[in-house]
């Protein structure tokens, strides 16, 4: 454990000793997958099978081409049992269509798999040689999670303030709120808590918009598609294909205010956020205009995006057009799916990245200060490589621990790919995922070809959650695929060679404090800004801990700005540790 530095009220390293020493099961389960061949040069290794992560998504398709069957699932990272490592929650699909049974499914349920959302406990062990053995155990039933809806995504946050993260599961159908009881089990309380939104929801985020210390909830609702309003759609060639969002009407998002007593009030209308909407797929809450209050950025499918600026009185005003982030630089709305906010240019404000439909390119918006953005996609070199792909899960990730945020996007089409159909592919939507390295001069370089065998796989990827799954100080990625397996892409880039600093910001009552801003000073190497967040990406929940790659230097100071606005400074925190900090 690192030494306590003057000014720290509570500071402790997440020592390896906190990781349980015993595992329930050592032998890997599940079928061997193609991404696991390991080369010494691989930056990411598909460690799914060796970790025992055994999940295959079931989309319930039966040839009807229901719109909802190709949209999920996301994935959530959370430390549900408070043991210091990240567990995994993944929503699951079910059979779609009235009267349809599993026997009607185009692709059968994988042998041995149970339907319903899944929770995997991380039982990491430290081996004798000091390496970490990550092992996941399916604890869904023991945890009392009986989510049988048609799962889409998940948001994670401790809305009760009991120190344990809760789950809000978005569904094609009524959403679930799983309250973490703190004893390894969950209780479904959506209706009681007033958040049983029955629209088709995709992404959601917990954040404290009124800074009262209780996490509120924003739910990104999509369109008014239902099985009953399903309509046939056709490609240009006249073949049946999946419908796009314009075949249905968008529905407004919802904002729920946490009453601090375990319940929520729907303030969508009163707050103003229901006034404009466009079929939301992604959402991220951050302080974009740097006034100390969290705003909301909503990524819409084929409609202008919204930037809801917090008016500090319970109201929000959409300022996306003037901010330069409603539509692309030609003035055209794009099919925004995934979104993430982070400071990629080291100037202390939140920049945005969005993943889009093929032939649109992903989009990078650089915050020029005060919440005014500039589309720098072309200049950053991010346009051309993304043009052939349809991106979903997307996020900033400093995979090489050099202090600059890189970009990872997972891809998968939403309409039939002709070349695959030509080959007789039964589910011709799959594509490869992509990794881009931040070159530090405003430009990015696509490095997928060097990232490892996992990036050679072609799947219908949807969710991506970013976090340090093996607690080794670098960012790993959990990727989910529609009608495909969940994969843990283990980061092996630095392999212990680069320094890093982790920060776990805790509220006074022990919950992870979402929205805490951290500045890490690195001497001549400059400062790095990060934010404690679980949202972003697509229908997924990220590691809420803050992880800063230090490269070849050490941190000279750490400055925290709490959601309340309070600021704390700590000198020379030792690297290679997760520091747990609480407000004074």
């Amino acid at each position, binding site marked *: 454990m690192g030494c306590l530095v003057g000014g720290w009220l509570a500071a402790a390293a997440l020592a390896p000793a906190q990781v349980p020493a015993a595992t329930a099961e050592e032998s890997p389960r599940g079928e061997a997958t193609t991404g696991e061949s390991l080369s010494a040069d691989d930056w990411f290794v598909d460690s799914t099978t060796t970790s025992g992560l055994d999940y295959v998504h079931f989309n319930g398709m039966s040839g009807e081409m229901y719109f909802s069957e190709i949209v999920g699932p996301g994935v959530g990272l959370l430390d549900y049992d408070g043991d210091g490592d990240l567990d995994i929650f993944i929503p699951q699909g079910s059979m779609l269509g009235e009267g349809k049974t599993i026997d009607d499914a185009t692709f059968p349920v994988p042998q041995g798999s149970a339907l319903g959302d899944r929770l995997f406990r991380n039982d990491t062990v430290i081996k004798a040689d000091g390496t970490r053995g990550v092992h996941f155990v399916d604890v869904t039933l023991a945890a009392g999670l009986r989510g049988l809806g048609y799962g889409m995504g998940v948001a994670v946050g401790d809305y009760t303030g009991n120190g344990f993260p809760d789950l809000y599961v978005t569904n094609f159908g009524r959403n679930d709120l799983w309250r973490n009881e703190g004893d390894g089990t969950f209780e479904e309380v959506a209706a009681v808590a007033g958040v049983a939104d029955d629209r088709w929801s995709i992404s959601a985020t917990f954040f404290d918009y009124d800074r009262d210390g209780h996490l509120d909830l924003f739910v990104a609702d999509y369109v*008014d598609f*239902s099985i*009953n*309003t399903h*309509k*046939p759609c*056709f*490609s*240009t*060639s*006249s*073949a*049946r294909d999946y419908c796009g969002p314009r075949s249905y*009407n968008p*529905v*407004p998002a919802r904002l729920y205010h946490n009453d601090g007593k375990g319940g929520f009030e*729907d303030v*969508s*209308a*009163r707050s*103003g956020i*229901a*006034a404009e909407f466009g079929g939301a797929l992604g959402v991220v809450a951050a302080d974009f205009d740097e006034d100390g209050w969290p705003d909301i950025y909503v990524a819409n499918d084929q409609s202008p995006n919204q930037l809801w600026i917090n008016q500090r009185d319970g109201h929000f005003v959409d300022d996306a*057009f*003037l901010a*330069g982030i*409603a*539509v692309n*630089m*030609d*003035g*055209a*709305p794009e099919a925004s799916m995934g979104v993430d906010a982070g400071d990629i240019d080291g100037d202390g404000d939140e920049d945005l990245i969005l993943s889009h439909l*093929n*032939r649109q*390119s992903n989009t990078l918006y650089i915050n020029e200060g005060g919440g*005014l953005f*500039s*589309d720098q996609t*072309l*200049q950053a*070199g991010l*346009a*051309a490589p993304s*043009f*052939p792909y349809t991106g979903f899960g997307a996020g900033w990730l400093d995979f090489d621990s050099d202090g600059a945020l890189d970009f990872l996007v997972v891809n998968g089409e939403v309409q039939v790919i*002709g*070349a695959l*159909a*030509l080959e*007789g592919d039964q589910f011709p939507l799959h594509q490869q995922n992509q990794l881009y390295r931040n070159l530090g001069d405003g430009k990015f370089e696509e490095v997928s070809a060097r990232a490892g065998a996992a990036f050679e796989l072609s799947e219908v990827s949807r969710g991506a959650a970013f976090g340090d799954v093996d607690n080794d100080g670098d960012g790993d990625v959990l990727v989910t695929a529609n009608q495909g397996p969940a994969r843990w892409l283990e980061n092996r880039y630095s392999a212990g060679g680069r320094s890093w600093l982790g920060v776990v910001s805790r509220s006074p009552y022990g919950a992870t404090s979402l929205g805490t801003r951290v500045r890490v000073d690195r001497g001549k190497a400059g400062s790095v800004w990060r934010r404690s967040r679980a949202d972003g990406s697509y229908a997924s929940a990220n590691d809420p801990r803050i992880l800063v790659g230090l490269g070849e230097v050490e941190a000279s100071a750490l400055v925290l700005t709490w959601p309340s606005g309070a600021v704390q400074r700590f000198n020379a925190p030792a690297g290679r540790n997760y520091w747990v900090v609480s407000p004074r």
Partner: protein
Amino acid sequence: MKVWTPVVAIALCLVVTPIVWGSSESPPAASVTPEIPQPPLEGLEPAVRELLTATREALLAAVDGGTASTEELADLYGHTGMVFHAHHSFEVAEVCYRRASELAAKELSWPYYLGYLYQDTGRFGEAASSYRAVLALEPEDPLANLRLGEVLLSLNELLEAEPYLKVAAGVDGLQAASEAGLGKIEMAKGNLEAAVQHYRRALELQPDANQLHYPLSLALRKLDRIEEAKAEIAKGGKARVSAHDRRLTEIGTLTASSEMFMTSGARAIKAGKLDSAATAFRGAIAARPSNARAHLNLAVVLRQLGDLEAAERSARKALELQPDYFFAHFNLGEILEAREDVAGAKAEYQEALAIDSRHIKANERVAALHMRAGEFEEAAKHYEVVVELAPSLPTPRYLLALAYVGVGETQRAHECVEEALLVNPGDARLQEAMVRLVAVDSSANASDIERALKVAIEQQKETASFGGAEALAMVLAAAQRFDEAVRLQERLIAQLPSSARPAVVELMQSNLRHYQAGERAVIPWPEE
């Protein structure tokens, strides 16, 4: 290069063998003949399947026949590429264009189409090579200059892109798109004034390309001309800048797909060309008679054109093909409503709601019919659904309040309006409703009445409406300022036009009697 159509292509296939090629030139060596992939035809409309099969077979027959000249083969490959391109079968089209380019090294069209195919599928490097091949043959080819400029822009090769766009900017039909591209380059270079000029020029050339107001606004914002930027944002829309590309137009004529007709129908509607839209949807029906959406779209267009009888027929045809078609029920409901068949309309809306009970517009329509029939309780049920689904819209809340009044739940109506005002505080109709409901609410306290009075007076200052004045009289009475209420009411009654509805006249006179008797009004709106 000849101009081909689907008919020509099909005719060609009907005489597949033997095809007698007119030239004595030898065909290319068999060793370089590419394999033409067989696209999956399952699920395609018969007309499309027939066209693609015939086109491909004609090509194969010509290649195998060995009698076609190089030029003829090039044309055949190229046109096969175009037919497949038109149906988004890019893989087949690519093979064909490439071969056509090889066979006819001096023909501009094939590398151009190949370039566009690459550009359209995000293969910018290959697109640039193809366009450069065109320009190597004809440096002044305007379309290739424009497209190469666009592609280089996508590759962030700004300086390289600029001269090509400048060439295209001098050509009629391509100017607006070129100016927009040049604006983008200047934006990227940070030359904001120059960017503003290019965008303004593009808008002058193509005023309906209202998407361009947005990049223009961004340039103005960066110049700190915020108010100008906001003004441009307000003018923004969905129409993009376009270039007149005769080559692409030609591809568009080759389609046999019902879906392509559907797309052009939708575009025609957007452009307000209803006759063209009807023609397109009829084309879609001809291509695939079982296309229920085409029948329904035609119905919608016919309704807009005023031919309600044909519209009804077309909507019923859509339902015959797809009985559980929500939108067909809904639109047929609207058509029947327009034909004043209220019972029929209500039945169709109910059918639609049986399929999707939470559809906003269907609930609104059926609620409106209930209101017209005085069935307020039923109306309220549907408006409640609408309010739940669209909480920020003022009109449904207003109408829900009216429905509550209809069933005698004035207090509930008042709560509904107050809730609506939280969301839409500036909505004049809601404000007037609030005033009226406070005025008739015997349990309203002094501060409620004072607030209502203030709102009513403010409203009258801003927009002196008859209804607002009537509401003001009502709340004056509620505030026990009966003399003022009587004077105002008498003045209003004197101003009532002879065409005023009897229910309005009756309510106004009844209210006047109340005020004269020192009583407040008891009914917020006329009964009807």
